[in-house]
């Protein structure tokens, strides 16, 4: 029983499911922010955590980081590296939401769209779940990694 649960929890197929879910999630989340960068900058500013001169830069850089990382997860390219970046992003988001919850700031998350429900402890829990998925993908993903197909070819050519 325990062995079966362990096998399930360490399954590369579960990691693949998490990887595709997270990849789709990040691509979806980034698309709105890229289309409406000005709105995203106001969302970032509403968190009151970064200096004003960095707000617009973050509003431009972060969505592109998200969409590139999401696409790389979907394609299975450099998965370990990408999960480190995505894990870092999610940790920053979670910390920012956590701090604003302690402040009782009546702001929306802005994770997907500009007009959303206000942040809550459920938002933190959701982000922590995604961090858990990211960690799982980092350690157990080994199925359908596109870069391995090409790297394998290169190794065969080299030898």
């Amino acid at each position, binding site marked *: 029983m325990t062995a079966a649960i362990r096998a399930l929890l360490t399954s590369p197929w579960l990691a693949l499911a998490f990887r595709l879910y997270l990849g789709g999630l990040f691509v979806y989340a980034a698309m709105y922010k890229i289309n409406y960068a*000005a*709105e995203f900058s106001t969302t970032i500013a509403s968190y009151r955590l970064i200096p004003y001169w960095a707000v617009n830069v973050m509003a431009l850089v972060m969505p592109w980081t998200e969409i590139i990382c999401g696409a790389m997860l979907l394609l299975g390219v450099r998965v370990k590296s990408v999960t480190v970046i995505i894990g870092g992003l999610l940790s920053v988001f979670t910390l920012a939401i956590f701090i604003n919850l302690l402040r009782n700031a009546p702001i929306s998350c802005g994770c997907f*769209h*500009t007009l959303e429900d206000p942040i809550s402890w459920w938002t933190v829990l959701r982000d922590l779940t995604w961090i858990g998925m990211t960690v799982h993908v980092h350690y157990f993903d080994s199925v359908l990694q*596109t870069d391995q197909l090409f790297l394998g070819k290169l190794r065969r050519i080299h030898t």
Partner: protein
Amino acid sequence: MTRRDLLLLMLLPAFTACAPDRDTLPGDYSARNGEIEIRLRLGKDGKGVWSTDTDEIPFKWSRRDEGHIWLHTVAGGVIPGIIEGEDIRLTLPGVPPLVFTPLP
């Protein structure tokens, strides 16, 4: 399954994030706020113009789901609206709700 099929299968989740269609809403609308007539033009390309006798404000618009529309201002503001049949109801702070009816 070929390698190309595999890549397409892996890209499918990304396609689910495509924008909803805007084909039924584009056109010219009008609403009154007291003496002032406000005109709203929704273009097929997702761009629009809010105009009065004195102002003309460009914006982008998107249909969020069945029955909801958002107007995105250049400055980063969002004006949410409700689609009621052929009319569009917009609620702005400090102003009574504006009901925009299609112009013939």
